[in-house]
């Protein structure tokens, strides 16, 4: 029993001794240095990575900003171009609307009336001002002719207008013709005023 206690004490002592021996300052400095070094390296790497990430992020941000600015500029430019185009088209349409007025004809006739010659001059001027413009000349008749004869008469009216425009210097291939005879009256009514309005050549932008 006593022997046992001694052994336990000795073991305790030993283990205690060993414990004391471990805390001896002679072995400590070496271990510390390596850990610090490692930690420092890790810290440096971490910092470098963080820095790189921030830098990249900043670069991305800058790039996005630049792209956004570029997009904006492009959109503004396109918008401006669109606006300019729309204004040009609106001006073209307005000019066409103002210039392309029906001319009218005497009953059964296809001769250009003197009163309509200034209207045709305006059509010609419009075509000179807008060199891309093409116009279809639509010949129409009043109801006081036969269906078929009026198709021919409307054709002749369209050609009379075309011939007058080419005499004013308009190139022929910018002018096409079609006749609708009496099939598409502009107004209804059985009186001289309605009939005159229906005996017409219309100018349609192509």
């Amino acid at each position: 029993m006593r022997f046992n206690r001694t052994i336990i004490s000795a073991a305790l002592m030993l283990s205690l001794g060993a414990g004391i021996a471990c805390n001896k300052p002679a072995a400590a400095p070496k271990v510390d240095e390596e850990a610090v070094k490692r930690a420092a390296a890790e810290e440096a790497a971490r910092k470098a990575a963080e820095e790189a990430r921030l830098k990249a992020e900043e670069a991305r941000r800058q790039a996005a900003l630049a792209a956004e600015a570029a997009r904006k500029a492009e959109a503004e430019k396109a918008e401006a171009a669109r606006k300019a185009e729309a204004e040009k088209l609106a001006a073209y349409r307005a000019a066409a609307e103002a210039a392309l007025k029906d001319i009218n004809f005497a009953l059964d006739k296809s001769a250009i009336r003197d009163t309509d010659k200034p209207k045709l001059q305006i059509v010609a001027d419009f075509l000179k001002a807008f060199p891309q413009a093409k116009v279809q000349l639509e010949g129409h008749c009043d109801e006081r002719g036969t269906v078929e004869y009026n198709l021919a008469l409307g054709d002749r009216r369209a050609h009379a207008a075309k011939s007058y425009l080419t005499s004013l210097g308009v190139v022929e291939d910018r002018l096409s013709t079609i006749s609708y005879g009496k099939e598409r009256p502009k107004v209804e009514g059985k009186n001289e005023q309605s009939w005159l309005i229906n005996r017409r050549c219309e100018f349609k932008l192509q």
Partner: protein
Amino acid sequence: MKRWILSLVIGFAPLLVAQVPNQEVVLSTSAGSKLGIAVPKPSVVGITEEQAGRELHETLLRDLEEAGPFAVLKERQLKSGDASNLKAWVEIGTDWLVTLKAGRPSAEGSDKVSRIVGDEVEITAQVMDVKSAKAVFSKKYRGKDAVLRRIAHSLADDLVARLTGEKGVAATRVVFIRQLSPLIKEVFQIDRDGSSPVQLTHHKSLTLSPTVALDGRLAYMTYKGGPPEIWGQTKPGGPFEKLFPAKGGPQGPCTTPVWSPNGKRLAFVQGDKRGNTDIVVLDVGTGRVRRLTDSNCINTEPTWNPAGTQIAFTSDREGTPQVYLMEEDGSNVRRLTVEGAYNGSASWSPTGSMIAYVSRFEGKFDLFVYKLGEGKSYQITTGVSSSESPDWSPDERRLVFSSGSLGGMQLYTTDLSGNTLRRLTEFSGCQSPKWTRTR
């Protein structure tokens, strides 16, 4: 052959049963007066009296009244006795008594038991000349219920043929143009009695000037592709296809097609680059085109004589629109109309002896007929509104034409005296009628 095609198209086959051998032309009434005809109500088995009354009896009575040579007597005109009493009919001037039986045809099977065949209907028509008490006509007609009206038309035409030797026009149709919206006109057809309108084209475009060949092929002009083109059928019942201008060939507006009598050629009108219009003839088989007129003016509205050797047309070569004649090769042009400042829309009659046309006076058109044998014109209509685009009935007894104000045009028919005017259409915006047996 023609009868076969007709049967195929309208869907019933006339059965000739116990045909009376004596088929010479019967003119049992004094010259100039009409033959009194009576058609008591049909006896019916298997179909309703209402249906037989409306579609068979009433249709037949109207057809006979409109045919011309008959005076139709009604049961209510009987002075004595009942409708089964022959003498009662003779008393009121009946010459022909028509007995109609309508029922389901029965077919005898091997067990010799009659059975009803689907929705087939069989009509037996027998005609007795009551004065001589002799049968003058007997025929069975068979078809689906849906063609009862067509059977009535065929019977009416057969009775006219029995009396006059020339088939009637009850079973004919009229092809015409109808406006569907401000920018759309299409080709339609309607039965001669104004029933069963059918839309034939669906171009959703301005479509004008129909013409029907003797075999039923349709042609017309349409703005479907922009400038007007000639479209039509190359086979009876075939699809509508572009006939002119050909791909890659010379373009230009093409209007106003008219089939030649043999249906091999198509006359139409082509515009040139200066606004003149000429009449050209297309050989549909070869695609070859021949120009018949060549002058600095309008030449339009061609119409063939029935032999296909001459063409009448409208030209303003002497200042105002007038009707001229020429040979089929364009030679020998001579003026037909001499009075009036505006004559046009010529239509040559089926036998070739007359040309119908319109003449304008005070802004309105009226119908005239020029009789070639006499060299004289006769005025047919004297209308409050304009009457236009005349075309002949196949039996040459009547003209179909359009009349009314702009957008409200209707189709009418008139006899050559101008006395019996009948309205054909009940919807507005109709023009350019063409009367045909073969559609």
